[in-house]
């Protein structure tokens, strides 16, 4: 059998390589679920212990920015799915454009997140730094914002990594590195981006919605 340059030596053929890549990413995402899962467990425990303080704290968040960012993430996730579909049809140039648009939306997400952080800094909501809260359970309100900054911060790191990955994958798509037969790196990058999107949807519900019904 002829070995093509994209086929790594440990694999017999490209199908096996693509299967391995995809299973590898799913396994990695399982790790990620448990990583964020630990943090979300902590949130659930503390929200059960301090429901009023968490509701009061959540009302300080900017739901307009949160909702806007959710729309941005969902749209970019859709663009990535579309791009992977284009690669299957051998349309590398369109795929590249879609990947780069998705990456641009990722950058926009980070921009809005930065604006939100700046507002919270000015409103003295940063735990361990300048946190001032009035009303019931100031300590528990600080816990809410500790969760908020750790969770959204880790998520933002994931977004930043994803943006770089999408730019590279877009560039490789444009260079016709992927085809109907072989596009595992793009599929796997797509899986990762969808995961980042899903995490945000969960975080949105946990952070912005309590105390607002």
């Amino acid at each position, binding site marked *: 059998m002829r070995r093509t340059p994209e086929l*790594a*030596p*440990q*694999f*017999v053929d490209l199908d*096996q390589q693509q*299967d*391995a890549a995809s*299973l*590898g990413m799913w*396994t*990695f995402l*399982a*790790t*990620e679920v*448990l*990583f*964020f*899962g*630990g*943090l979300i*467990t*902590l949130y659930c*425990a*503390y929200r059960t*212990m*301090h429901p009023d*303080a968490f509701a009061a704290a959540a009302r300080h968040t900017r739901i307009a920015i949160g909702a806007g960012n959710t729309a941005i993430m969902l749209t970019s996730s859709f663009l990535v799915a579309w791009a992977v579909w284009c690669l299957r049809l051998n349309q590398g140039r369109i795929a590249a454009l879609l990947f780069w648009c998705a990456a641009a939306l990722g950058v926009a997400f980070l921009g809005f997140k930065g604006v939100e952080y700046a507002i919270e800094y000015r409103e003295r909501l940063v*735990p*361990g*730094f300048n*946190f001032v809260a009035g009303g019931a*359970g100031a*300590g*528990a309100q*600080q*816990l809410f914002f*500790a969760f908020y900054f*750790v969770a959204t911060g880790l998520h933002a790191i994931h977004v930043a990594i994803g943006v770089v990955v999408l730019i590279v994958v877009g560039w490789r798509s444009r260079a016709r590195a992927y085809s109907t037969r072989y596009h595992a790196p793009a599929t796997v990058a797509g899986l990762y981006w969808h995961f980042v999107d899903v995490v945000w949807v969960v975080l949105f519900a946990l952070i912005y919605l309590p105390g607002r019904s």
Partner: protein
Amino acid sequence: MSDAPSYLTADNRLRSWFLTTDHKRVAILYFATITLFFFVGGAAATVIRLELMTPQGDLVTSDVYNRMFTMHGVVMVWFFLIPSIPATLGNFVVPLMIGARDLAFPRLNLLSWYLFLIGGLTTLYAVFVGGIDTGWTFYTPFSTMYSNSHVVLAVTGVFIAGFSSILTGLNFIVTIHRLRAPGLTWYRLPLFLWSLYATAVILVLATPVLAMTLLLVALDRFAGIGIFDPAKGGDPLLFQHLFWFYSHPAVYIMILPGMGVVSELISCFSRKPIFGYKFVAWSAIAIAVAGFFVWGHHMFVSGQSVFAGLVFSFMSFIVAVPSAIKVFNWTATLHKGWIRFDAPMLYALAFIGLFTTGGLTGLFLACLAYDVYVTDTYFVVAHFHYIMVGGMVTAYFGGLHYWWPKITGRMYPEYWARAAAILIFFGFNMTFFPQFVLGVLGMPRRYHVYLPEFQVWHVMSSFGASILAVAYLLPLLYLGWSLFFGRRAPANPWGATGLEWQTPSPPPTYNFETTPSVTRRPYDYSVSGQAHAQNA
């Protein structure tokens, strides 16, 4: 047999080792690193045993003593036991056993070693600049609010090393799923692979929770936001839940690979197929799954609800069932076997006895009432050392001797190896059996000053520890000697089945000249291993 150069001689420049993607070379890098950490952890244990020779605290201050047992625990758990069998023996033989050219992700494999090294060096740095005094468990609120030692540094080291565990686990899962040779179905897999698969699942699912928990500890300590401080609305017990959600399954990360090695050894040196293959295989999976639901037995006296205590106690008894299945099936394999007492087999037999002792005393601890009596005593210390040292380290040495000819291409000196195996067994029992007695008599763990009536047991234990220390140094000497002067090993010195024995010792870089195909069940000792190898 091929004329391709072996993986050891293929390219000897330094960068070809440090930038290698060959799973066999990465395994060697891991060997060197964990051996170093084993002796670092051992040095701390030596100080502990010397101090405990007398009831007074006369060798070190209590502060230094705290740092010593913490360093012993942290280094031994995360930098020796967790990677021991998976990252060294597993890394080396997994692709060989499934007839593959390498792991699925060779570069991630190398990355995992670098992460391990960086994590280990960070932790060692924490030790050298003053150490950590929290115990290996980093319990809050002591670790977050009161300890004056280098908690953040140590936690960072463990955090980084955690990602190396995750990458190893991920690599094994994908490799075992996707890279098996033609004809190698799941029920034809050697049992070592079943147990490594179960281990890998735990590595991937439990380690991230520890990573998050340690991140929160570091953050809490750094910024004082009270995540685990009751005065600020936090809950120190939540730390224990999150910590043991990882650290109890981590016990199975440490023992499952050992069980896998022992299954290989018992079958090979009894010249019989393993008794009840499917039961042994699935019991590894059962241990991994059930092991996720027992963490609360570390918290029986923490004030958790009676209901939680009952559930965790019950689940802990459940885990004993698959463990017992393994022990019964190993002994049934021995029955009417043609048993050879080579050094690996001596280690395997020692494992069965020591693991059974550790496992049965584990059942004592799973009983709510009895556990309250011996909580935080030497009974617990003895129990988990029987599992981790008597079990895992013994299996590690067994596997090391068994695959040594394959790894190095040299035979080790058999009589020295048997002497070391026997010495380890006696030294180990002499060190740790008195600790069961101490625990029942009421000696608490982590104390360096104790009542004079305990002294006789402590002296016995320390005396055993010195035997154990010599016994652990012996393999370092004679295995090192064999690297240069050992007899050249044939491809299959044990007449064993299994694909790893069908390629030269040491194997060429890509393991097999042509991809082997498998037509037989594993451990098919009805045909001799030698004939098996030639047929392929």
